[in-house]
């Protein structure tokens, strides 16, 4: 039986109800029991002084790669769930491009049981759109959902066949399932290793044009309109994509979209010196693209921030730019980057940011959480939104270290993360 928890005197921000007050939050039996002033906890409850901190529903990351099964040297469900908790996340959704691919109930069940054993952040598996993510035949959505999958995606790769994407969107409607697409036309991006632009020209690296993403975004939006299905667009990186999504939303297309912390922070200039920790897919783009993404988070064209946490081995990144794998870590820097780049700059208020990182993700994938309404799951985070800290990859809970943000000073981080009413992460000294 977990002891009840009383979080006393914090600034309680609940984006689901638009509230922001100094109050106490009482958690009992794995649920939010009460939010208000002067709550007297029962005997034996744990009391945390949250004065000067923010108490919010736990952050939810809709897009992470946990590498298990198959590449446990890079990350496991357990280490990823711990990294998530340290980043303030009470839930993450794990992409299925593992080995084996999550295209069957066995692998879905395996991930869920690994997450339960780890008992840190919740891990919701995302199933594959196609068997083996080979882009040929639909995976059995019904079986995947029955086993616990919350969405389907072939991420890592695009769904190239428009016919397959159309069928997936239609078939997914039977299960109210979002189909998440990694938008990339492989014939336009083939061989590219960074954004196609002046920096690539100077570095002598093959570029991936913005059009490679935009033609697929356009296609997915048209198919979503045709089928009435829910298309979720992963890691949007270009201003052209933002424009397309904005217009589709105006027309009532069922589209949701995410952007990563690195796309709202960095540009292709980060590739100077052939820095492989600036190599990811979709690539870092131009300042105008970064600006468009930030604005899109303000006006809701982009619904959520999702990290695309992608662990890679040090040796793998320590090589020629062409050969290095794509992707960087994200869970333990996401909140800090978002506060520094969006809140400190005045683009978003903290409640608006928390909406994008907690409430809205829960809405987009239909997950529990994202709210502190009494009766909701006790997935809560105590954040220090003002603390300035230096990113130290050596101290990450993740098994990997591939981040370009080492040494960067960020504002804002999690002090205490609670899942199902149990403390799963506590920064020393709270």
């Amino acid at each position, binding site marked *: 039986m977990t002891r009840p928890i009383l979080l006393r005197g914090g600034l309680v921000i609940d984006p689901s109800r638009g509230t922001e007050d100094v109050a106490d939050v009482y958690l009992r039996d794995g649920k939010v029991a009460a939010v208000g002033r002067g709550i007297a906890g029962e005997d034996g409850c744990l009391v945390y002084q949250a004065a000067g901190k923010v108490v919010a529903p736990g952050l939810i990351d809709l897009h992470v790669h946990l590498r298990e099964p198959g590449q446990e040297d890079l990350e496991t469900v357990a280490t990823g769930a711990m990294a998530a908790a340290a980043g303030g996340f009470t839930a993450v959704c794990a992409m299925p491009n593992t080995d084996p691919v999550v295209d069957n109930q066995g692998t879905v069940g395996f991930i869920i049981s690994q997450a339960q054993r780890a008992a840190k952040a919740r891990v919701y598996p995302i199933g594959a759109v196609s068997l083996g993510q080979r882009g040929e035949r639909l995976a059995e959505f019904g079986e995947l959902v029955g086993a616990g999958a919350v969405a389907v995606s072939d991420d890592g790769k695009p769904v190239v066949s428009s016919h397959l994407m159309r069928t997936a969107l239609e078939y997914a409607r039977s299960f109210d399932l979002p189909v998440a697409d990694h938008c990339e036309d492989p014939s336009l991006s083939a061989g590219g290793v960074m954004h*196609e*632009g*002046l920096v*690539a*020209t*100077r*570095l*002598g*690296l*093959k*570029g991936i044009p913005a059009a490679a993403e935009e033609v697929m975004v356009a296609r997915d939006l048209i198919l979503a309109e045709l089928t009435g299905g829910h298309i979720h667009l992963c890691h949007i990186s270009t201003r052209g994509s933002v424009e397309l999504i904005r217009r589709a939303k105006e027309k009532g297309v069922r589209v949701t979209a995410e952007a990563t912390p690195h796309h709202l922070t960095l540009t292709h200039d980060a590739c100077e*010196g*052939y820095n492989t920790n600036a190599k990811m897919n979709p690539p870092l783009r131009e300042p105008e693209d970064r600006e468009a993404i930030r604005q899109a988070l303000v006006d809701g064209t982009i619904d959520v921030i999702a990290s695309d946490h992608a662990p890679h081995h040090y*040796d793998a990144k*320590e*090589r*020629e*730019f*062409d*050969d290095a794998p794509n992707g960087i870590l994200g869970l333990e820097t996401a909140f800090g980057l978002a506060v520094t780049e969006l809140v400190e700059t005045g683009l978003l208020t903290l409640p608006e940011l928390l909406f994008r990182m907690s409430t809205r993700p829960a809405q987009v994938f239909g997950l529990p959480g994202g709210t502190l309404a009494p009766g909701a799951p006790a997935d809560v985070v105590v954040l220090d939104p003002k603390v300035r800290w230096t990113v130290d990859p050596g101290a990450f809970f993740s098994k990997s270290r591939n981040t370009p943000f080492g040494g960067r000073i960020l504002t804002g981080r999690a002090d205490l993360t609670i899942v199902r009413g149990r403390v799963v992460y506590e920064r020393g000294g709270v």
Partner: protein
Amino acid sequence: MSKAPPPTPPLPKDLVGLEELSADQIRLILDTAEPFKEVSERPIKKVPALRGKTIVNLFFEASTRTRISFEFAEKRLSADTVNVAASGSSVVKGETLVDTARNLEAMRIDMVVIRHHASGSARFLGDRIRSNVINAGDGKHEHPTQGLLDLLTLRDRFGKIEGLKVAICGDILHSRVARSNIWGLTKLGAEVAVCGPQSLMPRGIADLGVTVFKRIEEAIEWADALNVLRLQLERMTAGFIPSLREYNRVFGVTRERLARARRDIVIMHPGPMNRGVEIDSDVADGPHSVILPQVTNGVAVRMAVLYLLAGGSPDWQHPGGGQGGGAE
């Protein structure tokens, strides 16, 4: 009495590209190359400037002329040279570039000349070993010694670089020679243009300070010198251009097209040539061509680079200064 502080080296540890050199540094290399040209004319083509130094030519891409040019440069400076031809990608071979670097360092190699298919590989190596690293061509990024020998050849012919109009023609998108030339020429005050099929023109090229000509005729009318790049056959199979025949018909440097040029237009080519594709034989072998002088200058420029990187003093050939001249 206090010792004089050690002189700051005129060049960085590694020659990775011309983008990061200053105009003065480039001029220093060209000036140092001049007297080395004379060494290659002697019956005994040797000076002891780099005696006792070990140099490895680490070529991951097949190359005859560049490797031989470097080898002659090294041997004429009396260095000990070792050629390593690593076929195929290091990943395929199993040994990473990092491990190759560490092994070289452990063997206390003084200098490494590297040619590799990945852009950035010269910098990658240079950042990880103490030896001097000379880029003999990294992917599509730079080929600095080619750029330097092109500059030297132009300077020989015209007496200066500043104000010269140089058009680089061909597959600019994939060309490290083009990039190095653009940096070297613009830093020394030349006017630079590029010309080629639009599908082989990199994004943002105009932002590097070059004019873009759509047609080869425009480039020929405008230029004092044409640097004609080799068109690789793979560009056709990859669909960038429809055929080599069409390329020659539309962009080939032919005698007919040259009739519209300035009288003394100079034709350059980094080699090896695809005769009948980007350049016709009667142009390559004709009176405007400086293709063979480029090759001669290549050895001298490489001698200068190796010498300066190894710490040689720029006025080596004057008795009493530097490491002494004269054959042994």
